[in-house]
């Protein structure tokens, strides 16, 4: 599936305004996810217009309405399928056009991802490859296009939602974890490349967040509301952070898990 642009009445404001400060947009990829949704609100609250990209057009339209009513900011929707090669190639350019030109697209938040069923993925090469395609390959393709945009623009921010699962391979989620680890390394390299320009490249590593992905899973503790996570992501961008663990204590949890000697680690069911 390719990319389709849905225009909204709010887009008229941008061209009609005289002497208005330059409006800037943030592109959210996978905007229907709970974390993405609240990240969108956090950016709208800070005065950004939004371009909401995803597969569920009806849901995106509702999210866009919500942003307009709550924050009085512009919100556009963009049909985007992370696994479609044409979407991967054209989404960013479409977003630039919706934003009203390269100058106006200030940042991108890559929030699509799929946890999948690890017990199946451990034995099903088809599923394992699929999870890597969604969580890693698709992200790399889109971010590669985005990186050139920000490099030539000379400022802006790139955010990708990774996972604490990428910090150490564990029997309970290593396929998903491997893809997220790859994404983290890719982001690390991108950060290195774009640092001279002052472009923020932020990897978000959520622990347990109360979303569709975790709902009903056993063994969850201290689960964070997605609204708090969205707010922290926008704040981390303002503070030009590189890696954000949410909730913050997951940095310590993962440090301990990474440092566990293998002999002990292998005796756990982590």
């Amino acid at each position: 599936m390719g990319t389709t642009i849905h225009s909204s009445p709010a887009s008229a404001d941008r061209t009609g305004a005289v002497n208005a400060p330059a409006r800037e947009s943030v592109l959210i990829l996978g905007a229907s996810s709970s974390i993405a949704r609240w990240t969108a609100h956090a950016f709208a609250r800070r005065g950004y217009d939004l371009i909401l990209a995803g597969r569920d057009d009806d849901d995106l339209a509702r999210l866009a309405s919500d942003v307009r009513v709550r924050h009085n900011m512009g919100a556009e929707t963009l049909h985007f399928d992370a696994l479609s090669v044409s979407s991967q190639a054209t989404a960013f350019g479409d977003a630039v056009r919706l934003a009203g030109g390269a100058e106006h697209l200030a940042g991108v938040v890559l929030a699509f991802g799929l946890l999948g069923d690890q017990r199946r993925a451990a034995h099903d090469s088809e599923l394992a490859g699929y999870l890597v395609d969604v969580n890693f390959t698709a992200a790399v393709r889109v971010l590669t296009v985005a990186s050139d945009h920000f490099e030539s623009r000379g400022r802006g921010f790139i955010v990708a939602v990774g996972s604490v699962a990428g910090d150490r391979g564990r029997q309970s989620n290593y396929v998903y974890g491997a893809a997220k680890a790859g994404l983290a390394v890719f982001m690390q390299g991108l950060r290195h490349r774009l640092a001279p320009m002052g472009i923020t490249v932020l990897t978000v590593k959520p622990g347990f967040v109360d979303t569709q992905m975790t709902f009903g899973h056993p063994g969850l503790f201290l689960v964070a509301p997605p609204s708090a996570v969205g707010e922290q992501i926008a704040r981390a961008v303002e503070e030009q952070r590189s890696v954000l663990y949410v909730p913050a204590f997951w940095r310590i949890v993962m440090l301990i898990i990474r440092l566990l000697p293998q002999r002990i680690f292998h005796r756990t069911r982590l």
Partner: protein
Amino acid sequence: MIGSEKLVARGLGRSYGDAAVVRHGRTVLTERLDRFLQFDARTGVLECEAGVTINALIDHFLPLGFFPSVVPGTKHVTLGGAIAADVHGKNHHVAGAFSRHVRSFRLLTASGAELECSRANNADLFWATIGGMGLTGIITDVRLTLSPVPSPYVSVRYERASNIDDALELFHADDHRYAFSVAWIDCLSRGGSLGRAVLMRGDFAPNELLTARQRHDGSRRSPTPRLSVPGSAPQFVLATPLMRAFNAGYYHSHPGAPRTKVLSYEPFFFPLDKIRNWNRLYGRRGFLQYQCVLPSVGGREGLIRILEMISSSGSASFLAVLKRFGEGEPGQLLSFPRVGYTLALDLPNRGPEVFELLERLDALVVRFGGRVYLAKDARMRPETFRAMYPEFRTWLAIKNEVDPDWRFSSDLAVRLRLMD
């Protein structure tokens, strides 16, 4: 609709009984269905998803000068729940129930069809859903009218009534002059003081009435509650003599002559929201809430009989409310409010004698042509329900047509044997 399990929607779960749970079925959580879709500031008409809460409405629209047209005693309810229970507020005598301000809603029905329901379209389903306790389907979107308000403050006149007759007289004399009217009633006083009350009536305050400080504070968002009940209260707190003394103290804390105060909308509309887990004050065994309405005709006598029964049992607590309801809408079926007097009270769960008392109260309510509020009920018998809700047959015919297999059910529906 996929599958064949029983379903019931649940908002924030503030019904006191078993309305939003279903054994051997699935409870459908709706709190994430909370997006605003469109707002017209000229008309006050808002279109939004049904999981939006009263709290969210106030947080967003009060700074813009709008307030929900009807609010129940807590702001922690969803709009879907407010329609399903057809909640009412302190302004029922002039503004009617919640449903009066609902233009339309979308209902996801058992067949999987999503139907637009209003007074003009699918009117049967519209009225069966209002007060229908979630049994007609899942409300997804709502269009409702918000009311413009001059400030976030309410000017309230406090007036003591030395007994129930005094209170009813005051209600009748000038209730229509106030947008909001309610009375705290002492359900433990006896004899000549039976039903003594403190009436609290008022309106949203115009800016001229506010102090400089109130004008400044008014623009802030509502704070999160600071008080919280940490654990269950010990039983002695609920002992009748202590409660009696507490009620007398509260009554006498109000001066004999009426006085007016300007206070924030929060303590006026949502006094208990200030204290998190307030229900724990009732100890580990909890409490039962009882709310009934008696029609105007014979209502005074009925109220006196009910108050006598409660007072002599010594079962009531501090929290008891008396209010006069205004006219309803002709199409209402299971909607609770009807013109007359409504009495709501908390009863600490002291064991079987409370349930026996409630049975006797039910019989009185039926005798006087009244009814009990389903959103607060957890123990009514099926026969009692049928005697109180004569429109049930009409409702059932609509229910059986839209959901012949009873995909939407709840423990309340099973307990009241609604499908028989």
